[in-house]
């Protein structure tokens, strides 16, 4: 089981959280997009082998969403950070070349 650092509550068990996939996907103006861009926004999320910045919600705790760097090969946990704040750099580790910053 992952131990996930909630920025508000500290380290908690994975079972207290729900997953939200790739972080930092801004909600676009649907009218400004082509059909292809809209389909991409709806359906395509990063799926890298290595470091991934992703969203989690601490539903059994503070109930708030935050972002987290996590390695999809080793399951190592990197820094957590709040939405709309400066994204920390991906941890310098294996899988670096595959990571999506």
């Amino acid at each position, binding site marked *: *089981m*992952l131990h996930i650092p909630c920025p508000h509550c500290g380290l908690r068990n*994975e079972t207290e959280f729900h997953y939200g996939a790739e972080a930092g996907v801004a909600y676009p103006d649907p009218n400004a997009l082509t*059909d*292809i861009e809209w389909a991409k926004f709806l359906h395509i999320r990063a799926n890298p*082998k290595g470091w991934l910045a992703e969203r989690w919600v601490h539903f059994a705790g503070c109930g708030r969403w935050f972002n987290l760097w996590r390695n999809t090969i080793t*399951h190592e946990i990197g820094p957590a950070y709040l939405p709309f704040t400066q994204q920390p750099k991906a941890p310098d580790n294996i899988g670096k070349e595959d990571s999506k910053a």
Partner: protein
Amino acid sequence: MTNTENILAPGTIGRRRAAPLPEQPPQLWKSVTPKKAYDVIIVGGGGHGLATAYYLAKNHGLNNIAVIEKGWLAGGNTARNTTIIRSNYLWDESAAIYEHSLKLWETLEEDLGYEMFFSQRGVLTLAHSVSDVRSKRRNFFANALNGIDSEWLTPEEVKKLVPIINISPDVRYPVHGATYQPRGGIAKHDWVAWGYAKAASDLGVDIIQGTEVTGFDIRNNKVHGVQTSRGSIAADKVGLVAAGHSSILANLAGFSIPIQSRPLQALVSPLLEQVLNTVVMSGAVHVYVSQAHKGELVMGAGTDAFNSYAQRGGFHVIEHQLAAALELFPIFSRAQVLRTWGGIVDIAPDASPIIGLTPVENLFINTGWGTGGFKATPGSGWVMAYTMANGTPHALNQPFALERFLTGHLIDEHGAAGVAH
């Protein structure tokens, strides 16, 4: 109502000895060094890739084909799965392709000349609540309209078929009924891959293991070959059949696909006497169980919540599924868990596969089978071979094109497939 003639009668807990396994020939497929060029290269030596190569040779007369596998044959999801085979999916598009596959299974051992313990012992899918009953009955009626064998069973009929099941009404998830597909069943997964590999090799297909595809030779938006850990190999057509690694390969070829890769786990007990003659699935409580040929209980758990390429999952997922399994089958409380493992499954937004053309000319893709593609192995290979040979999809996989995410014509099988197999 149910076909139990060919198998042990319900309630028999005999001193049944495992039948001896058939002798294997010393060599099933030729070992080769890669040629400089092929007509077709298939990336991924799981069941689907091998089946694609076999049907390209058998149905379409191509004989200059290579299957390139980074590890060993079937070492991906193919030989990690719980082998549940059925075709009772909800939507017409899914019913058609899975039923085509089930029909191929029914003659596959003769076709390939290879035993694979395909056993049509029936698949039972339990309903545990009023809404569960409604959706399962809807599924049952949809199957009837599509000519797919399906029955609706009351809890008492479920108990008759599976005497060890607990149907008492005072448990957390009582059994309210079930659909039953008598033609469903299981097969021995690694032998399925070997059977296809042997038959493909006999037809001249080169099977190349321990070789990773690391890039593509794409000029003017047209593929001309692949780069591998053993050098470049030219090809007129390339098919990506890489399950959990499909996103990585698509990105290398310059496009993105709506796939997320997640761990899915399973487990087995030691060899036990025969107590279970059919396959029991329950999407609501995440239990999928059958008793394999030698006597081990094979159980599937749910997916882990997050993206991963680690081929392992969290133990709490196993605990969750075992808790539900023990409520349904109290007799399992004395069995032990011998081994657990995980595979990396390729999940699409609508829980349906993606089979067809890509934005790159002569590059084809077959992915998104997620938690339930083993049953589709023959049908998937069959339509993929057609698509690659003709450069255009077969009617059966036309609805499963990548374009559906643009048109919005999704084929939502979360109900039928969900985490189910």
